[in-house]
């Protein structure tokens, strides 16, 4: 309970520190802020907006667009934050940090907006292909989620530049493996093996 109050206060005042020891708490803070948004708290929403809209804008600007479409990033910010408001009740703090959850929404909305720009009116629904999870997490998953988050965060810092670069191109710029190969003037096989190495290094894949 003490932790909850502390985090809640931090969310309210935006006095969130980013030094190393409090990063974990910071992640929880925004998760708790999202839970307040689920209760239709507009002030919490404004704080969340101030924190994440600039990240979403950066994500939108990293997108390779089919042609001139200057408003894309702003449109993405609006679409994503609108969805955050509407789907906040589906957010499960035990399953994902606020950043991860908002990243998945930004990923989906980017695909949706690009689809509209390219005038595709396909029959396949993006929300069916990439659904936001709706089963709730058990205590074990909550613990596992935290351990994983910590591990990924730490090992991401020590990842060789070449491996980090391919991950950024994939997750942030939304490039396919062959588009990454073209962008870096590398053979497709090299791109695939760099991604595989990065995933091994981050222990992202379970033993098979």
């Amino acid at each position: 309970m003490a932790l909850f109050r502390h985090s809640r206060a931090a969310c309210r005042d935006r006095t969130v520190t980013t030094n190393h020891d409090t990063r974990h708490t910071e992640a929880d803070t925004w998760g708790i802020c999202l839970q307040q948004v689920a209760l239709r708290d507009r002030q919490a929403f404004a704080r969340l907006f101030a924190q994440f809209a600039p990240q979403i804008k950066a994500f939108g600007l990293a997108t390779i667009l089919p042609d001139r479409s200057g408003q894309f990033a702003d449109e993405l910010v609006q679409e994503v934050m609108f969805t955050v408001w509407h789907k906040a009740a589906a957010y499960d703090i035990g399953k994902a940090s606020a950043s991860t959850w908002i990243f998945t929404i930004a990923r989906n909305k980017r695909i949706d907006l690009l689809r509209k720009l390219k005038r595709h009116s396909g029959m396949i629904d993006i929300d069916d292909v990439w659904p936001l999870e709706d089963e709730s997490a058990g205590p074990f998953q909550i613990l596992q989620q935290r351990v994983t988050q910590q591990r990924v965060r730490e090992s991401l810092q020590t990842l060789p530049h070449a491996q980090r670069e391919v991950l950024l191109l994939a997750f942030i710029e939304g490039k396919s493996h062959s588009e990454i190969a073209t962008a870096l003037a590398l053979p497709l096989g090299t791109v695939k093996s760099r991604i595989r190495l990065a995933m091994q290094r981050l222990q992202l894949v379970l033993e098979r």
Partner: protein
Amino acid sequence: MNHHPEPTLLEQYAAGTLPLSFAMCVSVHLNFCARCRIELRTLQNLGGQLFEELAPIPVDASLLQAVLNKIDDAADAEAVSSRETTAAAHAVPKPLRHLIPAGYDALHWTTMLPWVRVANLAGDDDGKHHLAVHRIRAGSKLPRHDHRSQEITLVLNGSFSDEYGIYGDGDFILRGPSQVHSPLIAQNEDCICLSAQSAPLRFTQPVWRLLSPFLT
């Protein structure tokens, strides 16, 4: 379940870079597979952290107001458009509920061979791939065939085996162009599979090869 998407395929799914038809097959597999769901969560966690580390770009103050206005407008129509379907009652995996709203039996089936039926679900945005469902009679055998490019098969119901393994509910199979196989369907029930393919099956035995242009 023994056959899962390989890690780099899950990575592309998590990053949102797979063609829609392939991503749909992964989504259906995830619906069956708790282990891959954990792996996906970890990959999305990676995406979230890369996202968090982006240098923020200032946003115009009017944007927050624009979103709040939109929220107010939408509140009037809050009666959420519930696109309820009966798919659940027909045991169709959730990601397919809009494409197969009334169960497998109600699909528009075309007969390829007396014991093989196919129903096309949707084309992919890329214009190259499409999603289809195949229904193959219990105990039957498919003629030997290869695939013209990368293709995914996902078992929705029933089971079959081929030169490479045995496959049941939720199993995910990625085949390359050179892999020729002759599937054998289990005796107890029809096998229903989802597939993402770029071209129809091509049978490799002479008789079927002659016939195959007329079979689709």
